[in-house]
C-alpha cells in the first residue's frame, strides 16, 4: 500500500527526520491562500500515488500569488484527478542526495541505496554511472548498526562535520522502514542545507500489504482505487485490476490468470478486467461474477486448474451466479483440478460447455468477443 507524500512526511516527523513545514489544500483558492501564508518562494506539490508527477508539471515552485494561482489551476485541472496539494516553503540547499531502504530477496537482507547525487535523474544515473550509487546489504535479523550508517556517510564523501548529521538520518529512516513494515522507504531528494543539516524534500513509503494486520493505522482511501469495482473487490479480498477491453477474466490463481491474459492478447482479444477468485476466494463465485458483469463485458472467461480451490464448488457457484445475475454475455468455462468430473457434470446440466484446454477456451472467448462463433 503506497502512502501519499504528506502521509509519509507525517511519519518522518514522528521519527524525527526533518521535513519542510507544509500544509494541505484541496482547492485552488485554499492553495493560493496557504501559499500566501507560508510566503514565497514556496512549492506546490500534487498529492497523487502515480509516479512521474514532476515531469507532468504537477510539482511547481512559485514566487508570487499569481504564479501560485497558475500552478494551482493547472494542477487541479489536470487529468490526474488531483484532490489535494501539499504547499511547502522552498528550502535553500547546496546538494541533493538519495537514500532508500528496500528488500534484497536473494540475500534476505535489507538493501540500502544511497547517492550523493540524488534528484529526479537518479534512475538515469543508475544506468550511466552506477558506481555513483552505493549499495549496502543490512542484515535483516540484526538490523542496522551505527557503524554501517557512519561508513555510508564517509563512502558518500561527506565532510566529517556533515557526516555526523547524516548518519542519524540513515538510522532513523531504517527504524521507520522496519517498524512500519515498509517494502520501500525512500528520500529523494534529501537536501543538504548550507548549514550542514538535512531536510527530506520528498518522501516515498510503501507498506507491505501482508503486514497491514499489524498496522491498523494505515487505511486505503476510496479515491486511491482505479474504479468502484476495484475498491469493492479489494474490500472483498479479491485480487482485481481494471482494464477497458472486451473480455472479463474470472480465473483462479495469479499465475494462471496472468498466463490467460497473455493468451487473450496473443489471440487478438482485449481484457476488461483481471479478477482472481482462487485460493481463499473460491467460494465467492457469485460475488466475483457480479463484479465482472458490472464491466458490461462481451464475454466472461472462466479458467481454473485448482488444488485446494475445488472445481465442483466453483462450478456450483458459477451456476448459482448465472441464475441470480442472468448475465447477457456468453460465458466460457474451463474448470479443472480437484473435483473436475463433478464440476463438468454441474456445468453441462446448466447448459454450459465445459472446456478442458486453456488455449481452446481463450480462442473461443476471443472469437465470441468479436461477435463470432466460439
Amino acid at each position, binding site marked *: 500500500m503506497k502512502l501519499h507524500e504528506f502521509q509519509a512526511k507525517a511519519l518522518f516527523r514522528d521519527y524525527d527526520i526533518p521535513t519542510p513545514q507544509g500544509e494541505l489544500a484541496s482547492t485552488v483558492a485554499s492553495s493560493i491562500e496557504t501559499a500566501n501564508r507560508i510566503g514565497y518562494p514556496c512549492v506546490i506539490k500534487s498529492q497523487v500515488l502515480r*509516479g512521474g508527477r514532476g515531469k507532468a508539471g504537477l510539482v511547481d515552485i512559485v514566487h508570487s500569488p499569481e504564479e501560485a494561482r497558475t500552478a494551482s489551476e493547472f494542477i487541479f485541472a489536470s487529468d490526474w484527478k488531483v484532490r489535494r496539494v501539499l504547499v511547502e516553503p522552498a528550502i535553500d540547499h547546496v546538494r541533493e542526495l538519495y537514500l532508500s531502504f528496500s*528488500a*534484497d*530477496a*536473494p*540475500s*534476505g*537482507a*535489507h538493501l540500502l541505496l544511497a547517492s550523493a547525487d540524488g534528484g529526479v535523474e537518479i*534512475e538515469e544515473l543508475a544506468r550511466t554511472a552506477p558506481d555513483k550509487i552505493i549499495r549496502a546489504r543490512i*542484515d*535483516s*535479523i540484526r538490523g542496522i548498526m551505527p557503524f554501517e550508517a557512519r561508513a555510508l556517510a564517509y563512502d558518500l564523501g561527506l565532510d566529517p562535520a556533515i557526516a555526523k548529521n547524516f548518519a542519524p538520518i540513515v538510522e532513523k529512516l531504517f527504524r521507520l522502514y*522496519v517498524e512500519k*513494515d515498509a*517494502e520501500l522507504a525512500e528520500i529523494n531528494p534529501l537536501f543538504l542545507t548550507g548549514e550542514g543539516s538535512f531536510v527530506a524534500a520528498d518522501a516515498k513509503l510503501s507498506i*507491505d*500489504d*501482508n*503486514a497491514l*494486520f*499489524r498496522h491498523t493505522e494505515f487505511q486505503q482511501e476510496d479515491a486511491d482505487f482505479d474504479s468502484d469495482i476495484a475498491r469493492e473487490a479489494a474490500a472483498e479480498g479479491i*485480487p482485481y*485490476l481494471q*482494464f477497458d477491453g472486451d473480455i472479463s477474466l474470472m*480465473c*483462479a*490463481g*495469479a*499465475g*494462471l*490468470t*496472468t*498466463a490467460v*491474459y*497473455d*493468451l487473450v*492478447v*496473443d489471440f487478438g482479444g482485449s481484457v476488461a478486467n*483481471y479478477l*482472481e477468485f*482462487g*485460493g*481463499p476466494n473460491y467460494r465467492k463465485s457469485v460475488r466475483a461474477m457480479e463484479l465482472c458483469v458490472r464491466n458490461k463485458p462481451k464475454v466472461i472467461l472462466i479458467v*481454473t*486448474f*485448482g*488444488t*485446494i480451490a475445488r472445481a465442483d464448488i466453483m462450478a456450483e457457484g458459477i451456476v448459482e451466479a448465472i441464475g441470480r445475475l442472468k448475465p447477457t454475455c456468453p460465458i466460457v468455462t474451463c474448470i*479443472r*483440478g*480437484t473435483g*473436475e468430473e463433478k464440476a463438468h457434470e454441474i456445468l453441462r446440466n446448466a447448459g454450459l460447455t465445459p472446456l478442458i*484446454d*486453456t*488455449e481452446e477456451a481463450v480462442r473461443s472467448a476471443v472469437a465470441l468477443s468479436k461477435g463470432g462463433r466460439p
Partner: protein
Amino acid sequence: MSILIDRTTRAIVMGATGSEGSFWTGHMVQLGTQVVAAVTPGKEGERVGDIPVYHTVRRALDARGHADSAMLFVPPRFTKDAVFECLDAGIKLIVTVADGIPLHDALQIRAAARASGTTIIGGNTSGIISPGKAMLGMFPYWIERVYKPGRIGVMTRSGSLTNEVTAMVVRAGFGVSTLVGVGGDSVPGMRFAEVLTALELDPETDAAVMIGELGGTMEEEAADMIRSKAFTKPLVAFVAGRHAPQGKRMGHAGAIVSGGKGSALDKIHALQSAGALTADRASMVGTLLAEALAHRASPRGITA
C-alpha cells in the same frame, strides 16, 4: 531418485490438526510420506489419524526421534515463529505453504536459511512432491494427467500454472521426478537457482521445466546458472506475464514490473541467450522438452 524428499524422508507436520492441515496430512501419508509426528501447541496427546500430536517441535523429536523435514500448515502471521522453532530443533528442510507472510518476516526467514544451510521452501506455494514417493504439501497427485512419476524436474512460482504446465509435460510422454513450488512471494526461502543445483546432481532427472513469471530476478539467476555451466541439463522455461501492463500488480507480491527490469520479456531474452528453450504458451512445453531431450540423446544432434 528425486531431490529433497523421497520414501526415506521423516517429516513432522505443524498445524496438522486444522481442517486443511489434517486433510493434506492424510494425503501425504497416503502417498507414502513418513510423517512421524504432528505439532500443535496445546494439543499434545491428540492424534491426527495415526500420528501423535505434541506441544512443541522439541517434544515431538524427543518422543519420536529424528526428523529430516517439517511441513508447516501455519497461518502467515505465525510462520516466522514456526520456522525458527524448526531451525532451533535442527530440522534441515522446511516447507511453508502460508500465503501472505509479511515481507520483513520472509527476509529474516531467507537470511536464517542461508546462515544455517537449511532449505526452506515457500511461502505462498503448494509445496514439494516426488510423484509416487513422497509429498510435503498440497498437490492433487491423484490427477494422473499431471502427477505422473518420471525424469523431469519441475520448479514453479505459481500453483495454478503448475497443473496447467505439468499436464503438458505428461501429455508429451514424460513424467516428473520432483516438483518444487518455490512459491509466488517476492522473497521465497528457496530460489530457482538452488533447485537447479539439486536437479543437476540428481541422476534420475534428465531435464528441468521452469514455470516463471514477471517480477524479481529468479529467472535471470537460472539463466546465469546455465551460462556458467552450473546447470548443464536441458531447461525449458515458461514465463507468464509477457503482455502484463507495466506498473500493474498481478496478484503476487513478487510480480511487480519496475522500470522494465524483471519484465517477462527481459527474462525470456536472458534465458534464450543462455541457451534455454522458452515456451510462449504452456502447450508448447511438452514439444520443446521432447526436442531438447532428443537433441541431447543423439550425438549427431549436437552441432554448432
